[in-house]
């Protein structure tokens, strides 16, 4: 089986190593990976900030890049997949484009969704002997209905001790443009999330969305916390070495 990688703009620009890890994990379980050239941004930032008409050009490029491909499209981000699945098709009034968009949306998956719901895989051969807690990113949780998938994958990692996070499902405060339109509120929410992470006793906090990761990792770094924030994929790629 061969899947198409949807890099996502945050993933590509800030978390290149996570994308590399995604390739390693997929190859380790016998899935080939292709990277369609020419991909840019799917258009979500424009759509979410109200510039719906400006989301069309990037979205059209997304169609142009992925239409000639076939097979599953996999992304390291719940919010991007939520956008592609639930909003991108409605941007296109033209019946032909609309139908192409729907076809692509129907085979686009968030990584944990792909592993667990499509491949029915839980154990990806990872080793990560550390205490880990999990933050549930909002779009994967409520947009895509993914509640247990990442946790099932984490529980199958050798040596990993998964500890609960108080207010696991409460938003971390990123919210895309929200983080820069209302920085005080965003920061307040981030601090509350970090306080919960510290109280969990974990050495690592993992999550499946680059947006949350930028926010929480930045917040932890700012206070000089020894707790490290990782993308779930980084843990799934690990095989015993320190990260």
């Amino acid at each position, binding site marked *: 089986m061969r899947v198409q990688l949807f*890099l996502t*703009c945050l993933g*590509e*620009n*800030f*978390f*290149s190593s996570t*994308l*590399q890890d995604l*390739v390693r994990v997929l190859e380790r379980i016998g899935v080939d990976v292709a*990277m369609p050239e*020419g*991909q*840019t*941004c799917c*258009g979500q930032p*424009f*759509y*979410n*900030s*109200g*510039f*719906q*008409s*400006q*989301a069309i*050009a*990037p979205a059209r*490029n997304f169609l142009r*890049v992925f239409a000639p491909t076939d097979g599953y499209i996999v992304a390291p981000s719940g919010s991007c997949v939520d956008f592609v699945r639930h909003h991108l098709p409605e941007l296109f009034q033209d019946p032909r484009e609309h139908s192409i968009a729907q076809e692509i949306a129907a085979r686009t998956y968030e990584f944990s969704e792909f592993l667990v719901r499509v491949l029915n895989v839980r154990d990806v051969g990872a080793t990560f002997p550390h205490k880990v807690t999990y933050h549930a990113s*909002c779009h994967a*949780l*409520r*947009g895509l209905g993914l509640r247990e998938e990442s946790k099932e994958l984490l529980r199958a990692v050798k040596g990993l001790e998964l500890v609960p996070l108080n207010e696991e*499902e409460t*938003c971390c*405060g*990123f*919210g*895309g*443009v*929200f*983080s*820069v*339109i*209302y*920085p*005080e*509120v*965003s*920061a*307040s*929410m*981030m601090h*509350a999330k970090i306080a919960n992470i510290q109280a969990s006793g974990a050495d690592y906090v993992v999550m499946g969305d680059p947006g949350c990761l*930028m926010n929480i*990792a*930045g*917040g932890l770094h*700012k206070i000089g916390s020894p707790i490290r924030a990782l993308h779930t994929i980084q843990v799934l790629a690990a095989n015993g070495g320190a990260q």
Partner: protein
Amino acid sequence: MMRIDFRANVQRVPPNMPPSVRKATTRFLGTRANVVNIFGDERWQQLRQAGHDVRLHTINHLDYYLTRLEENVASAGGIVHWARDAEQARQIVLAIAREHNVKRAVKVKSMATEEIGLNHALIDAGIQTLETDLGEYIVQLAGEGPSHIIVPAVHLTKEGIADLFTQKLGVNAPPDPLELCAIARTKLREEFMSADLGISGANFLVAETGTLVIVTNEGNGRMCTTLPPLHIAVVGIDKVVPDFESVNVLLKLLPRSATGQKISTYTSFITGPRRSTEEGGPQEFHLVLLDNGRTRVLRDPVARETLLCIRCGVCLNVCPVYNHVGGHAYGAVYSGPIGAILAPQLLGVKIAGDLPFASSLCGACADYCPVKIPIPKILLRLRHRVVEGDHVQDAITSAPMRAGARAGSFALSQSFLYALGSQIVKIFQAPFQRAGWLTHLPPPANRWTMTRPLPAFNANFRAWFRKRTPAGRARVQKRKLGIGLLFAGIAALGAWWLARRKK
């Protein structure tokens, strides 16, 4: 009315506000969980769907149900008035009050009456107007606005309330909730007895019979609508429901979602004035049906679902933004997620255009809403209205902002520009980098870095991926050649142009 500046309001939130608000929201979410679990998830979801479907059906046939309601209230002896806006509604109430020579009025808590600023209008006209819900009574004495829709005085301590009662009521008030309630009961009892007018809103208006449904816990709702000889209800046109079967559904959703009670202590069902002297109750009943922007909400088929709201407040309880700032920051009668979608539609985006952005789009509200209002979907719809305009209202963003978005959209849709941009930014970030982080960036990027660093840009995945295959490596070579030729060409052109200038 002045433009609501959400960020400025947030910066003024006093430090005691979020913790008190959070006490209330945590309590209500906890009690809610108990009573919802009793139903079991399947029945609860069925109930929510039923609540959504009956309310949507009503809104989609609002003209029909309003006319039926009016007929039935009138045939029960009630008098129906229609108010286009707040000013008209105030004038209607004032006219009725003057006609009856009203000196003292008692009120049941009603968001609609707050929307129209009724209290001030009555007080300015020399009519004593007293809020009788304990929390509303307290904030009225304190001269403040409510901080939470269900428990308006939750931000005040019992000590603070005791001081307030001592100062304003001339009593010796100890800081004990039971004693403070007893003081309020005594004071307000006399007010109920001597009032000429009782003012209320309504939770629902039943079209089939012309009945008002009023949900309360303290008994003041019954007092205000039973003891004075005159009763005026001011109710938004969106409160109509078709029949009692609908009330059955909605009464199972509202108290459980609002306070975690299976049902509130008192639910009054009022159809017109009293039908006999002996039973007691008001001799005259007026219903003021309020538009005040609700017809504007109707114009958009998606945003119209805002009117399904039954004012339970659960979206406030579960909203992380509301929990971090409290109600005052929203600057409108309605706060939290429902405020973020209702206020910009009632007041217009020029005044309340900040509010659809006062959300991280986490979606928790939509999960909890008992009538399944798709709040995040409506937030996105209203953001679009603010920024690009639609058939309901024009955009309010500036031309430069929209030009910037067009430029960004173009850049992010062209793979060459996008790739180039990713590489260029790696160069320009160099002076700001510290150990893989960008800690201080110039405006406007400092809106991120003021509270936490940004990871350094490191877009090198494509290069890594391409190098893994011969075909990929060849492509990388071709690109380098291409870029090299491009720069060589630019350099040559530059040299030629300089040479021409020297001549």
